[in-house]
């Protein structure tokens, strides 16, 4: 009877480098053999590797958690799904079923939402570039439009004349909430008086009805206090507008930017410690609202949460294709998924799980993607036991932004599946092939090759 094999490993011992959490990375490993009860191997067999896997259960759960946190604290809340975070039909459909409206930032996203069956008046249209024709459509269909700049005010007045209606609009504000970087490129600045100028301009034009204020202070905000500042400033401004211009502000759209339990590079603490709970955000927002609103006034609170809802519902299964030893002594693995489909690898350190028990001491290693490009690094330093070729790694959370910002670059984009609440596995986006990529190409007759 032969003995169990473990890949040979040698580690240099360093004194004075004790881990303050008392756990040695040499023996930590996380094994995940299934996602929502479906074996990883079975998923790969059927749909290939790499593979994006979404959990419908987790998605709904996460949405309800966020929804409850706010609706228990304020009587008039709307959730609007940030399409850019993840605009796969199936993901949007789940969230629309849960009661989310659609928040879009381009005519493309607008069209995608409409195609999915979202009525125009359930769409919030944001962003710095809204082509004129899309404004006409949005006004016709009753979408809520948050204006970004003075040109857009003029555009909308033109639309008003053209259609003979008085569009109900919001304006986007930017402000100092004490966080850095301060997002100042979108909307009208509050402190400088620009926002008030915008209201004056709208009032003097007389063709638009200002009914809403919008703001979005940043992304992956770890400080709940910033939202408190945002809300108070918005309420103050709303009353200034109401008192001076006679508009009634019906909604306060405070945007999104809530973090997920992902690990930002450069943050030492684990996300469970560093990321405040959604209840904490809700408490700050709602108590700021209730303490600054006038009695009996409950304008609609709109939240455009994206990442906080979908990020943790997404996994990526990837396969170890090769192992190498770098001249520095560091172990390196070549995976079949890289930054082409994992855009968030640039700022996150993913949770890495292995699909099987692997014996042996963990060693420091770097995870490379499949691209023949130096930038293709999925993780520049992690600890894994010696992985045989073919081992699957499960990376998470990857549900936000990756399936929208992924690039068709060098390789085809992989399939995406959704695991339903009863264990159904549905393909929600097929893996690409050559036809997807060449469909729009035209080769001039004179360049046709005759080999």
């Amino acid at each position, binding site marked *: 009877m*032969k003995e*169990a094999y473990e890949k*040979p490993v040698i580690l240099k*011992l360093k004194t004075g480098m004790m881990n303050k959490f008392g756990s040695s990375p040499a023996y930590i490993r996380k094994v995940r053999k299934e996602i929502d009860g479906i074996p990883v191997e079975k998923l790969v067999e059927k749909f290939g590797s790499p593979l994006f896997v979404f959990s419908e259960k987790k998605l709904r759960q996460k949405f309800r958690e966020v929804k409850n946190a706010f609706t228990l604290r304020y009587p008039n809340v709307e959730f609007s799904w940030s399409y850019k975070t993840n605009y796969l039909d199936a993901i949007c459909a789940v969230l629309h079923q849960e009661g989310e409206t659609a928040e879009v930032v381009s005519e493309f996203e607008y069209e995608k939402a409409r195609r999915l069956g979202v009525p125009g008046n359930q769409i919030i249209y944001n962003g710095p570039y809204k082509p004129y024709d899309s404004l006409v459509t949005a006004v016709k269909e009753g979408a809520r439009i948050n204006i970004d700049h003075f040109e857009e005010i003029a555009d909308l007045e033109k639309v008003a004349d053209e259609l003979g209606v008085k569009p109900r609009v919001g304006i986007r504000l930017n402000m100092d909430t004490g966080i850095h970087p301060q997002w100042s490129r979108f909307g009208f600045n509050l402190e400088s008086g620009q926002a008030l100028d915008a209201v004056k301009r709208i009032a003097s034009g007389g063709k638009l009805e200002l009914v809403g204020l919008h703001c979005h202070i940043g992304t992956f905000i770890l400080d709940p206090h910033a939202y408190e500042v945002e809300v108070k400033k918005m309420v103050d401004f709303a009353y200034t507008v109401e008192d001076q211009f006679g508009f009634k502000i019906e909604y306060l759209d405070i945007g999104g930017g809530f973090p997920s339990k992902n690990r930002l590079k450069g943050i030492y603490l684990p996300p469970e410690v560093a990321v405040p709970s959604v209840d904490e955000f809700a408490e700050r927002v709602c108590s700021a609202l209730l303490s600054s609103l006038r009695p009996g006034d409950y304008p609609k609170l709109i939240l455009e949460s994206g990442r906080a809802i979908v990020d943790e519902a997404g996994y990526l299964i990837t396969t170890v294709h090769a192992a190498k030893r770098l001249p520095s002594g560091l172990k390196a693995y070549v995976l079949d998924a890289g930054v082409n489909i994992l855009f968030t690898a640039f700022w996150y350190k993913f949770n890495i799980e292995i699909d099987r028990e692997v014996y042996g001491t963990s060693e420091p290693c770097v995870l490379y993607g499949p691209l023949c490009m130096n930038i293709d690094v999925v993780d520049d330093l992690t600890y894994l036991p010696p992985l045989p070729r073919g081992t699957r790694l499960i990376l998470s959370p990857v549900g936000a932004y990756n399936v929208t910002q992924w690039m068709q670059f060098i390789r085809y984009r992989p399939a995406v599946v959704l695991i339903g609440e009863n264990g159904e596995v549905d393909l929600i986006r097929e893996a690409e092939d050559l036809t997807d990529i060449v469909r729009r190409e035209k080769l001039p007759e004179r360049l046709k090759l005759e080999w």
Partner: protein
Amino acid sequence: MGNKLSRIALNDEGFIFDPETGNSYTVNRTGLFILRLLKEGKSEKEIVKSLTETFNVDEREAERDLIDFVEQLRLYGLLEGKNV
């Protein structure tokens, strides 16, 4: 085989001490198994054979892992030049 390897101290637990540099290392069981054979001056082929006879591993994997292990020894300065 280089003199270097014959000078290092190796105990049964897999603790290695390099008296020349003062560095210490730890190896797992397979690593210890290979180091002992290297110290005895065994060739790569012989080591792969011993590995496959002792452990539940095929020749290809053993060979691949041995190359990687020897590379590591060389990077740590525990092997000089081409030892196997």
